[in-house]
């Protein structure tokens, strides 16, 4: 199996697993306990917190551990809106479902929501956000990088506008962290997830700038400075810390390596399969590991299944529970029709990808596209 679906999740890194294992075995203490077992767990959690903070340019006290990116986004958006007591929310039409649904819930409860349009590459301009900030807003929520097509937003510029009018800014950085350098400068809330950068599933974090008030989603024992009650997932948090420590050391090399592979993949596909369209932007405007393409006349669903049968793992749209069918809301926001929005296929590379794999992926994909197009031609001609 050649794994080209790193935006869905990543293989856990061996160093991360090693760091976690003691906390799944003998170091089972509750980080809130007074005894030495508990104390060692507390130390491990706080060391991890420091690693996460360092990767983001934050202070450790500003890191809240959660169950993952979805909880981080919900805590940021619902927690902020409920603490500020009203005011509009500004967001984009290409956000992850956990942002869209959290905003949607507030909208049902009466919050005004403004969607800033994106261009045909999924880019938001700071000016478009600024245009919405002429009236007071409770929160701006923009994803740093898009999960489906990889578009990277000008977060620095957006942060500057938000700072000027004192509007809190939430950034969903789940797809950006570990892939491109990110920093919380000018950002008030920032979501990340461990399993997107070689850590375990079920753990994430929310950066909450010192002084920001949130209404917690979960109340109870007062853990995480009252932002998120519940006994800490010590092993998961330790794994996340380890993954962040590794990512901080390697981020430059990672970007260069992925970019070279990604461009080789694009050149290969373009050469081997006619009528392929690149839905992702190029250069610095895109995550270095992400390539979203459409092969005309080839449904994404069919190509994903065909590639899986031939040992290549990719995605169409974003993963969902039913596992089929929905056109990509991201591609539709970029101006694709509902039909065309079913054709996008995402190749997302990672730390384990190699040039030999890319060459394989190109030839397997080209063959699958040829076969599907031939089947389609036979259908249209009514042959059997």
């Amino acid at each position, binding site marked *: 199996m050649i794994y080209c679906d790193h935006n869905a999740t990543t293989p856990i890194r061996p160093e991360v697993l090693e760091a976690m294992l003691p906390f799944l075995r003998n170091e089972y203490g509750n980080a809130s306990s007074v005894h030495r077992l508990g104390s060692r767990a507390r130390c491990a959690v706080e060391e991890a917190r420091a690693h996460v903070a360092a990767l983001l340019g934050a202070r450790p006290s500003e890191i809240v551990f959660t169950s993952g990116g979805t909880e981080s986004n919900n805590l940021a958006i619902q927690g902020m809106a409920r603490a500020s007591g009203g005011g509009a929310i500004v967001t984009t039409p290409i956000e992850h479902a956990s942002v869209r649904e959290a905003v949607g819930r507030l909208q049902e409860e009466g919050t005004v929501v403004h969607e800033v349009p994106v261009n045909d590459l999924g880019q938001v301009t700071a000016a478009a956000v600024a245009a919405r900030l002429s009236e007071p807003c409770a929160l701006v929520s923009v994803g740093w990088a898009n999960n489906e097509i990889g578009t990277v937003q000008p977060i620095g510029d957006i942060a500057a506008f938000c700072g000027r009018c004192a509007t809190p800014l939430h950034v969903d950085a789940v797809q950006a962290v570990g892939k491109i350098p990110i920093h919380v400068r000018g950002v008030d809330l920032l979501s990340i997830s461990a399993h997107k950068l070689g850590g375990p599933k079920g753990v994430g974090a929310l950066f909450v700038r010192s002084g920001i008030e949130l209404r917690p989603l979960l109340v109870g024992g007062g853990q995480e400075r009252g932002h998120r009650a519940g006994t800490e997932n010590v092993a998961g948090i330790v794994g996340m810390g380890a993954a962040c420590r590794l990512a901080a050391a390697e981020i430059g090399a990672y970007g260069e390596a992925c970019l070279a592979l990604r461009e080789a993949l694009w050149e290969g596909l373009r050469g081997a399969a006619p009528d392929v369209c690149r839905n992702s932007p190029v250069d610095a405007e895109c995550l270095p590991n992400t390539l979203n393409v459409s092969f005309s006349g080839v449904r994404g669903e069919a190509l994903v299944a065909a590639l899986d*049968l031939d040992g290549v793992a990719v995605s169409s749209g974003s993963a969902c529970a*039913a596992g089929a*069918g929905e056109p990509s809301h991201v591609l539709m926001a970029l101006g694709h029709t509902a039909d065309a929005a079913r054709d996008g296929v995402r190749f997302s590379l990672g730390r384990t990808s190699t040039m030999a794999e890319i060459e394989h992926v190109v030839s397997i994909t080209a063959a699958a596209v040829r076969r599907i197009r031939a089947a389609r031609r*036979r259908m249209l001609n009514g042959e059997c």
Partner: protein
Amino acid sequence: MVNLKDPRHQASDSEHSPFTIHYSPFDTLTAPRGERVVVGMSGGVDSSVAAALLVEDGYEVIGVSMRLWGDASGSGCCSLDDFLDARRVAAQLGIPFYVMDFRDVFTRNVVQPFVAEYLAGRTPNPCVHCNQFVKFASFSDRARELGAQWVATGHYARVIRDPQCASAQLWAAVDAAKDQSYFLFAIEPEVLARTLFPLGGLTKTAVREHARRLSLPVAEKPESQEICFAPKGEYADFVARYAGNTVQPLAGAIVDDAGQMLGTHDGIHQFTIGQRRGLGLSAPQPLYVTAIDAQTGTVRVGARAATLAQGLRATRPNWLTDGPLPVGTRLRIKIRSRFAATPVTLGAATEDGFEVWASAGLPAVTPGQAAVLYADDRVVGGGWIERALPVAGAITPAHG
């Protein structure tokens, strides 16, 4: 061990058939072993066993669940639970499994015609439409995209093909109680030639036994029988809701044979030919719907004898023979799914339609339902009932 799926070992209940045509099954070959087969998996016991038997027989099997309707969160068809059951079976069998989206083609070819037929005073059969357009035509297209020449389902019916696999015959299942060949008559011959029905030679009991033998997680799962997109007993509500504000179901009078008004109703979509219950009438004799006039909205009722026709005319036929059969051919017909096949004689038969005549009469011939023709146990063709041909009694039907 006897291969239960090989028709050479299958018993037939038609050894003493009184009809003039006798087909004997070709010496069959199914798909060559090792070839790739895409099997439609609903999460039920039948399609699960079908997939398992194909795996045991050495095919390269791919499981696909068809997402047909709804948002996959509700109950009934296409629920997450059913997909999960199918996925678990596939995992146990060690075969790849995918959920694929057929909602567009299902809405266009099954749901919309279902509603339109009821609004036009006919009684549709959505399962036949689904088999024709979705479960076989579109499905086999998707199979080809996955590099598979063959498709399979858990239907109870048999395909018998010649050694060159060039043509195929559709036969009723060995288990007459489970036979689903009626629902399959409209499959195009080219698609039928690439179809496998692994359960056609098995009884339901045997299928359950296979499921238990293989420890399939769905071995004890109950049957689902109703129309998947509209809960049983609520078709009229569904039609009214789906038609919405665009088309109002036609209201009108309920009259007897003499044209005497007996009552009113608020939509012809609530009635089907032969219906006795829910008429809202009180009469000394049981009354049955004998005709529905979609122009005026009039529903005619009469005694049971008035629902008996001498024959019927069907349109849009699908012939599973080399073209239409000759006039005078003696066949058997099914005009509903639960209907004992009745002897008929073929009248005119063309590529546009056919007429049949039954000396014993045909009860409650219902426009919109499928009329499926059998020679012995072989499905030789079928069509869509347009109208009854003159009733045996003295009464002329409204459509006459």
